[in-house]
């Protein structure tokens, strides 16, 4: 059940990105928030750093502005390949809605797993730059796998599930060698196995709170490098899973185009040990 082939979508997105850079290289149609303060597209569609959602809302839309993003991401792991196509919208820097479709190609085992994630995030209070406590947001993600056959064979109880999370983000000016430091922390309540690709619930436990965090140093106003950590439940006796971590580098060409590259260490996935690999993500924002 593939609606569009990823290469065609990537070509489309690259075209979109280049066209938007050429057309809107000024501030026209861009939000007024400072470059980089919308993060990039996390693999579940929300604004974040890649693996984990952040409290900032997508794009650079501020009060009285709206914004939208489209992104395509891919991870090349030892035995798997993950493709994510996502889109998100920001209404007045208060509400974010997002949708993402993840396809995990089981290159060693054969076949593929697919899930769709619809998400929402509300900014509760604050600002990542100006508020002494940073920005705080609450969000949810409704996830459903396209085919729950493999997840249920491995012991998952459901083919769909819901995550809720509370997230805080804060930029500390002049923190490291004169550079600004971006801190993020997220608490998530979830019963998703491998983010949901292996279903929800299992024989080894149920819903639980997990912690996610990241830090990033803005080497320049356009370039941030850092690391992320995402704790995960471990509910399937037949397919143990590990916490995820990444080292990332994101470059904001302007308010319309960003490119993220990362090194992922995702641990065991569906019985195959220590999955590492590269990650790339391109986002276009309006």
């Amino acid at each position: 059940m593939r609606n569009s082939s990823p290469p065609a979508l990537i070509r489309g997105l690259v075209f979109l990105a280049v066209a938007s850079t050429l057309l809107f290289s000024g501030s026209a149609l861009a939000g007024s928030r400072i470059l980089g303060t919308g993060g990039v597209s996390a693999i579940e569609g929300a604004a974040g750093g890649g693996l984990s959602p952040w409290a900032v809302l997508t794009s650079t839309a501020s009060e009285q502005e709206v914004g939208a993003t489209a992104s395509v991401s891919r991870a090349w792991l030892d035995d798997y390949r993950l493709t994510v196509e996502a889109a998100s919208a920001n209404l007045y820097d208060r509400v974010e809605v997002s949708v993402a479709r993840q396809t995990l190609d089981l290159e060693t085992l054969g076949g593929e797993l697919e899930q769709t994630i619809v998400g929402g995030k509300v900014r509760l209070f604050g600002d990542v730059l100006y508020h002494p406590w940073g920005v705080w947001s609450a969000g949810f993600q409704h996830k459903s796998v396209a085919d729950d056959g493999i997840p249920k064979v491995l012991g998952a109880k459901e083919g769909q599930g819901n995550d809720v999370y509370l997230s805080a983000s804060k930029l500390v000016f002049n923190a490291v060698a004169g550079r600004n430091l971006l801190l993020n922390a997220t608490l998530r309540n979830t019963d998703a196995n491998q983010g949901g690709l292996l279903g929800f619930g299992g024989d080894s436990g149920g819903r639980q709170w997990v912690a996610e965090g990241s830090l990033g140093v803005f080497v320049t106003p356009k370039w941030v490098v850092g690391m992320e950590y995402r704790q995960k439940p471990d509910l399937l006796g037949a397919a143990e899973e590990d916490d995820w971590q990444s080292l990332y580098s994101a470059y904001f060409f302007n308010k319309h185009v960003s490119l993220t590259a990362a090194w992922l260490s995702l641990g065991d996935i569906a019985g195959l040990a220590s999955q590492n690999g590269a990650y790339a993500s391109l986002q276009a924002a309006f």
Partner: protein
Amino acid sequence: MHVHRYATPLLLALWLTGCAAQDATQPSLYTRLGGMSTIDNVVENMLYRVADDPEVVVFFANTNIDHFAEAFATQLCDISDGPCQYDGPPMDRAHQHMGINDAHFNRVVEYLADAMEEEGVPLAEQNELLGRLAPLYEDIMRRQ
């Protein structure tokens, strides 16, 4: 589980660079910015950007721009530990009931950052000055 494979070296690197940056003999931010001449240039550069933005320039319609430039430069000098004393009105009263929203505020911050960049202020000093100005957001927005 390999929690600390990346975390430990990165945190160590951050800590080491942080220590290196905390030099006790460092001159004041005012001096590192380039003193009053750079501050005056930054303010002038910023005001040209404001003048080009119809949505922001309206807030200066009843303002004597020379007086504003001098007051803002004095404030930047004061907040960067320079030999000045800002004695104008407090930020909440100076901006009250102007109808400034986050979008306007962000644009002026961007103009100031771009002005500092164009006037040759090093990034570390840009960040340090923006960090000292950031808490003013609450005062400026209090009575909108």
